[in-house]
């Protein structure tokens, strides 16, 4: 608190008021001081505090004295505070309420809130440092020290001032350096945009660009980390990778399929295949794309998609429609069956069992009984019985 000086509270020429807040109490470090209820004012040059009851009671500290500021959140029974760390007072400082202080920081306690806005404005002023570019003129009152504004290069004060200037220089250099970096980032953004548009053009004008050019462009794109525009294939025109994968799958799945009655859901296939691979797992996408090619590659298995969206892999020799006929027999024997019951009887997964029953219904062999008791399938007497 010894950095503060008494002041008239009037703003000097060139100094503008930024923000003010009532109900602020000051602390010298951790200790409360008698400045318990005042208006805190922030100007372009200084931080001022004026007693709410006695307006002549006014102190200020130049913003140039501020090293940095922190926010302190409110607690139970405690107001939010801003902690202001200060440089040691300069020797030519105007007299103030305290001659000395064991703390190098003060706290501003916002009993009536307003700390968020104040902190924001104070940070802004600390960044902009407008007091450096706007020299303050004389106030109306006579200045106590006519030489207060002049820079003295002698003594401890001089050394301190030189250090201060050096710090400012360094600060400036760093900011400029970062400026370059942000400019570089701007350029990089432009380059990415450019390459994206080229990639699009390649995609559209596949025929017009020569093979050579295309390869060159693609390699540029690759080096910049942009994926090859010709990536995911549509159904039917698989990549080499998917073709190889499809052949591999045919080999891996032959036996498991035979063991499971010739049909497996795609999720079962996914688990089985990846478990076998251990490393270099397949993505679901790659699996589906490879499976889509099974039939066109004339492999002994095929992908089948039911009306419900469920996907399965079947052996070519497997005929689901025939299985339906045997399903009808099973259901007829038992009178009626749910998907669960049917699955247990036949030794299938419930998912595939349901698909088979639904297919049987679609073919008109079964009909359904949907009630609170669940979904049951009956032989379709509507069609068989007159």
């Amino acid at each position, binding site marked *: 608190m010894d950095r503060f000086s008494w002041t008239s509270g009037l703003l000097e020429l060139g100094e503008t008021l930024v923000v003010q807040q009532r109900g602020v109490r000051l602390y010298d470090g951790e200790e409360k001081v008698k400045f318990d209820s005042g208006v805190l004012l922030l100007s372009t040059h200084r931080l001022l505090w004026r007693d709410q009851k006695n307006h002549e009671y006014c102190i200020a500290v130049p913003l140039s004295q501020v090293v940095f500021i922190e926010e302190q959140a409110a607690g139970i029974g405690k107001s939010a505070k801003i902690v202001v760390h200060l440089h040691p007072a300069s020797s030519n400082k105007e007299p103030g309420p305290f001659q000395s202080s064991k703390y190098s920081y003060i706290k501003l306690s916002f009993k009536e809130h307003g700390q968020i806005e104040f902190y924001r404005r104070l940070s802004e002023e600390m960044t902009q440092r407008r007091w450096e570019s706007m020299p303050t003129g004389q106030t109306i009152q006579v200045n106590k020290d006519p030489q207060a504004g002049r820079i003295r290069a002698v003594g401890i004060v001089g050394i301190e001032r030189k250090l201060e200037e050096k710090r400012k220089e360094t600060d400036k250099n760093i900011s400029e350096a970062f400026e370059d970096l942000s400019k570089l980032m701007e350029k990089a953004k432009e380059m990415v945009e450019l390459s994206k548009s080229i990639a699009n053009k390649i995609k559209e004008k596949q025929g017009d660009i020569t093979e050579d050019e295309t390869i060159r462009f693609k390699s540029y794109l690759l080096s910049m980390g942009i994926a090859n525009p010709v990536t995911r294939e549509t159904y039917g025109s698989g990549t080499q990778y998917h073709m190889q994968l499809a052949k591999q799958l045919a080999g891996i799945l032959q036996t498991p399929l035979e063991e499971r009655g010739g049909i497996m859901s795609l999720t079962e296939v996914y688990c089985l295949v990846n478990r076998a691979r251990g490393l270099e797992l397949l993505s679901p996408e790659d699996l589906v794309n490879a499976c889509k090619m099974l039939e066109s590659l004339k492999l002994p298995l095929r992908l089948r998609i039911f009306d419900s969206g469920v996907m399965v892999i079947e052996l070519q020799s497997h005929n689901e429609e025939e299985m339906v006929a045997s399903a009808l027999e099973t259901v007829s024997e038992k009178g*009626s069956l749910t998907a669960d019951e049917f699955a247990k009887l036949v030794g299938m997964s419930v998912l595939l069992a349901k698909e088979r029953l639904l297919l049987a*219904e*679609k073919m*008109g062999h079964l*009909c*359904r*009984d*949907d*009630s609170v008791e669940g979904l*049951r399938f*009956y032989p*379709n*007497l*509507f*069609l068989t*019985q007159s």
Partner: protein
Amino acid sequence: MSFAWPWQYSFPPFFTLQPNGETRQKQLSAWCALALAYSQRHRLPAMTVREAQDSPLFANHRLQRKLPLESIQVVLEELRKNGNLEWLDKNKTSFLIMWRRPEEWGKLIYQWVSKNGLTNSVFTLYELVSGDDTENEEFHGLDEAMLLRALQALQQEHKAEIITLDDGRGVKFF
């Protein structure tokens, strides 16, 4: 003689609207036939949809199955399309099941009229359905609502005209 329920009435899937098109057609035909038979046997008066939901026609308590509301409405619409149902209000809350279509009743009445050489005569409504002369006819005892609809159908065909008499309404046949 107790009402003879059809085999479908004891078949649980009968109370679930079937998704398979062909199956559904058969199912709906069976429902229409049952509704008409039931309506004829029990001389069903006009009903609300609410009443229909609880009626033994659509709710088989022994089987613990009832036809859900949306499905009942599908059946009612099917009946209407066949000319066997008439909505009595705009909001479709009450309806009348006509197990025999008005035109069919009209035909029967007109047949009796012409067979007995009674064209160009006038009858009161009472005479037609409750008179001794018509005792053996199918339309004997027909309720007034249906009778009027039947006569209106004949009126459309210019075979009859509904007239007002001193003590009520009557009809003249041509």
